[in-house]
């Protein structure tokens, strides 16, 4: 970089070191998820946003750590949930907590807003992917900004977007249709958004469905709820009904 800055046209330059293929393999080993978590769900309701994620961390197919929460309360305005590599989530958690602490210590009454964190995370993740050293995680950022609920996703490339219902990983296939259906029905029938209780019931239902079919899911999970003036995280456990199992046929 420095040599390039000093370059003057006409100066003689030696051949740049273009390196040896095998030594400088950009697709490096080690940048691959090892301790992983499965899907996260998020849904917007009339006065806030709710997120759900289970507490299991897998090591391959081993259900390794069964009590690893991954919904982070950032401040009184934002919650973040993560899926994917757990260590990368922990790294981001440390960074975000540091950010919040610095902000608090300034004591100027200004705190981070959800859209700001969403953009910030997208820049950090994009920067890492451009260096080919990705943080192998997907983040959901939820909060209320100017009385409007906000829910956004950022994936490991830095692909960022906002929507009213988001699910990552397996949830995108299993839970998202349920969520879209519930929200659309409510809108069509009553021309309104889900209430808080409806949203929580919806997430509980989705987590149950995921537990039945997602082999990396777990029956203990958390729901984080953020509204205009409160943030809370509930610890929940499923009571699965396995009697339906015998009705599933065609695999034996």
């Amino acid at each position: 970089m420095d040599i390039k800055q000093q370059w003057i046209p006409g100066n003689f330059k030696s051949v740049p070191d273009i390196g040896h293929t095998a030594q400088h393999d950009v697709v490096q080993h080690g940048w691959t998820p090892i301790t992983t978590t499965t899907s996260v769900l998020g849904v917007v309701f009339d006065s806030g946003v709710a997120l759900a994620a289970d507490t299991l961390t897998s090591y391959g197919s081993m259900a390794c750590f069964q009590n690893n929460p991954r919904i982070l309360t950032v401040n009184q305005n934002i919650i973040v949930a993560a899926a994917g590599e757990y260590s990368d989530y922990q790294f981001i958690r440390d960074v975000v907590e540091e950010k919040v602490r610095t902000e608090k210590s300034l004591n100027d009454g200004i705190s981070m807003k959800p859209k700001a964190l969403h953009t910030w995370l997208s820049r950090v993740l994009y920067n890492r992917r451009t260096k080919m050293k990705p943080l192998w995680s997907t983040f959901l950022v939820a909060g209320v900004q100017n009385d409007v609920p906000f829910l956004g996703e950022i994936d490991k490339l830095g692909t960022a977007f906002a929507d009213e219902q988001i699910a990552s990983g397996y949830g995108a296939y299993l839970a998202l249709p349920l969520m879209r259906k519930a929200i659309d029905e409510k809108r069509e029938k009553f021309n309104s958004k889900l209430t808080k209780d409806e949203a929580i019931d919806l997430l509980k239902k989705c987590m149950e469905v995921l537990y039945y079919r997602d082999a990396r899911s777990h029956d203990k999970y958390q729901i984080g709820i953020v509204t205009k003036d409160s943030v809370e995280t509930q610890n929940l456990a499923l009571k699965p009904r396995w009697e339906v199992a015998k009705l599933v046929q065609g695999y034996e």
Partner: protein
Amino acid sequence: MDTIIDRGAPKARNFEPYASNGGSIVAISGKDFAIVASDTRLSEGYMIYTRKQSKLFQLSDKSVLGCTGCWCDTLSLTNIIQSQLKSYLYDHNTIMQPNSIAQLLSTLLYSRRFFPYYVYNVLAGLDSNGEGCLYSYDPVGHCEKVNYTAGGSSGVLMQPFLDSWLGNRTAENPVTEEEALSLVKDAFTAAGERDIYTGDEVVYNIIKKDGIKTGVVQLRKD
């Protein structure tokens, strides 16, 4: 048998830095206007991320940028360009003209020649004479001034259609705003039939002397 022994271990996966997030752009310029439209589907593979992500970015009161391709690159590129425009505004106390933005965009795209932005850009605006102008790009910043263009996942489907309608236009027979708008709608309807990465809605911006008009047209949702 390795498969049995390896069953429990995490699998190594390659990291691919690009995603194809789909989406298409159509833009047409006329004598005193420019229209640029994009669909609003953001997808990856068979998965639709969201059905309401416009791919148009307003850069000033006279220019709009349309980007499709890899969404993370799009976000990064548009952020950089917007910050560059701000510093230009603060340095010179002038809003950058579309032709200058066009050159800036070309240079910025080329800065990533060896790790390209996987983005197809179309810049639409009104030039200093108040005439519509349009610039279309390739991913590493080759810029060309055109009268109409289509790009993105169904660019190949829509471009020849625009050619057949607008290819032989002369100065005496310029394209009108209404005609341009209906061409945009037709092009997207046709593309929506055959391209799974294009659909949901079309948002269009019509840039004119007295401001930018925005509208939405519905497309296939499947």
